[in-house]
């Protein structure tokens, strides 16, 4: 139970246990925790939907597609993976040229930029794939406004236009869209294996597994996925995503697909390193002490694909030069 809580999966576990009719088999001491986790999931869902409603209102006058990403997309599209999922912030994608308008509208409606330093803020604007986090001054909820799915510091370049183009409007709320199935999977994989977000690593992998199972029923999905990964330049994260979803969660992947991606396999040293790191980062080994190996693995994974130079040194130098010019 503690592990499920730490990996942000207790609410999901609770709903699954209930839906499978297994509550009678759960020890009495654990039941209140499952109930509490269910309450938490309901609250997260309620708050997320309210936030989307507020977002719609704030952006009413602006002509721009709004593509919900990650959790918000799963919830609003009614995907099974949203059941019992907890949400941190609300992520969405808009075209880069609309960023300024969107930011102004959000600021007019009570969201403010909260970054600890001017450098951080400029770094985010200049080098990342999103605006600095916008926090609502009363609800304290956070919006992440993306214009791409990978940061500028990454040498993989994704054409955000292609993502926006094939996004699908929601049936019951056409003001919002979600990414096409293949893109959704690729975004999930890129978020894990390029940006290296392993704080909720297992949860992210579970999302990926759910999406693959849901979309994978459609036979054309798998070949579309491979084609799309190639078109967007996301073959490597796609490979990692499928590899680890299958390894840790036994995601059913068709034989042909596995054969096709065998050629995408990186050379063995990075592969072995990645196996070692991912396994350690996904799950903590201890619940009563700091798992230092996991901390190290998470740190390395969050840096791994992006060179130190591009990520930290270039932005810092540029900032210093810019500031000295201003003076």
């Amino acid at each position, binding site marked *: 139970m*503690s*592990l499920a*809580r*730490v990996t942000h999966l207790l609410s999901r576990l609770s709903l699954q246990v209930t839906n499978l009719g297994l509550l009678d088999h759960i*020890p009495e*001491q654990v039941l*209140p*925790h499952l*109930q*509490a*986790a269910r*309450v*938490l999931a*309901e*609250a997260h869902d*309620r708050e997320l939907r309210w936030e989307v409603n507020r977002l719609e209102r704030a952006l009413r006058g602006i002509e721009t597609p709004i593509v919900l990403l990650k959790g918000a997309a799963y919830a609003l599209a009614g995907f099974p993976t949203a059941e019992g999922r907890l949400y941190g912030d609300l992520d969405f994608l808009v075209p880069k040229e609309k960023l300024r308008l969107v930011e102004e509208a959000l600021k007019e409606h009570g969201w403010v930029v909260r970054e600890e330093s001017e450098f951080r803020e400029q770094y985010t604007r200049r080098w990342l794939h999103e605006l600095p986090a916008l926090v609502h001054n009363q609800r304290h909820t956070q919006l992440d406004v993306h214009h791409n799915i990978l940061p500028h510091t990454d040498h993989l370049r994704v054409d955000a236009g292609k993502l926006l183009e094939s996004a699908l409007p929601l049936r019951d709320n056409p003001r919002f869209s979600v990414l096409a199935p293949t893109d959704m999977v690729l975004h999930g994989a890129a978020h894990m294996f390029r940006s290296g977000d392993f704080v909720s690593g297992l949860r992210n992998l579970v999302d990926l597994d759910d999406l693959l199972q849901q979309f994978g029923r459609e036979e054309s999905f798998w070949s579309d996925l491979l084609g799309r990964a190639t078109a967007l330049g996301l073959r490597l994260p796609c490979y990692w995503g499928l590899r680890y979803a299958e390894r840790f969660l036994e995601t059913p992947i068709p034989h042909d697909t596995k054969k096709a991606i065998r050629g995408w396999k990186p050379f063995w040293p990075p592969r072995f390193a990645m196996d070692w790191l991912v396994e350690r980062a996904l799950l*903590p080994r*201890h*619940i*009563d*002490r*700091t*798992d230092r190996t996991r901390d190290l693995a998470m740190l390395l994974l969050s840096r791994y694909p992006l060179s130190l130079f591009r990520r930290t040194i270039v932005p810092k130098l540029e900032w210093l030069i810019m500031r000295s010019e201003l003076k």
Partner: protein
Amino acid sequence: MNVSDLSSKELSDRLTSGSLFFRTGPFTFSLRTDLPEIIDAFGLLYGDFPVLEPGYADFHACLERLRGVKIWISPHGTFLNGGVPQFYPFPLRTALPYLEWGLNRCVFRNAHNYLMIHAAVVERGGRALILVGTSGSGKSTLCAALVLSGWRLLSDEIALIAPDGSLAGLARPIGLKAESIRTIEEFSPDACLGPRSRGTSKGLVAHMAPPRESVLRVHQRAKPSWIFFVSYQADARVAWTPVSKAKSLMRMADCAFNYTLLGRQGFETLADMVESTRTFDLVYGNLAEAVDLLQGPDLDAQLGTQPNQRERHNARNGPSRRLAQAGEDGGAASERVDLAGEPGSRHASPIPAEPAGN
């Protein structure tokens, strides 16, 4: 077996190996620490708590020394629940208060099967008195004093309200700040205070061990009966004013840890509780005086008349009339009416210092 039944070596072995499992109210904690300096203090504050065989725990708490170069200059620690840090690193000398705050946090961040409010709860004769107040309001001081005067401690920080409306207890140590520490020591020689920690985010802090009786009876639920919104004002005479149900509900919601999270059920639980209790603002400047008021054999009579009689006072005396003197209502002790708009009048309030029955 209780914590105090363990020899200091056994306690230290269990704490360092992570095999100390203890129970506080509805929750079982496992605790591991590599800080030898807190072991004695833990033994003192948690002496009467039952020790369980290692096995299931609701929360896995850990108080750990941080490693790294920076730490050689100023040693820092961290508090983990399930292996995840719950605070920014803190200086090691403040480890003991962080243990307390950390254990609280395990509860209020997770136990959403209760409505949880930041309040102190004490009980007498099955009826609970809830003290609500922000930091520095004198809530914990008053709670400690009541507990030292025979009330049973349910909780000093978190009021756990079950869906059936009853209050569950934790009976954990009471946190006292700066001057309250001396006030409580002067109030009663029975107060068993742990070591003081300087330089925490709340200044000087010490914790008072809960009385043995409270720990032993922690499983007895209590029925909420009185809610006091406490505020301490130096030199003020003790004074109380009824607060409307609507206002009480809003104030309680403001102090709740998970009111919005529980949605409709949270509202219903809280509304039922406010409906079935008597709610007052309580101002005090002298601890003994406040305890005397709440300590009397019949608190309801002490607090005064029923609401309809209060309205009669208002009509008769006008809103500025501050006091209904004892005896005016056929034996009812005393009652203050609305003081809004009269700054400073509280101090002049001629409430009897010694209410009837004391």
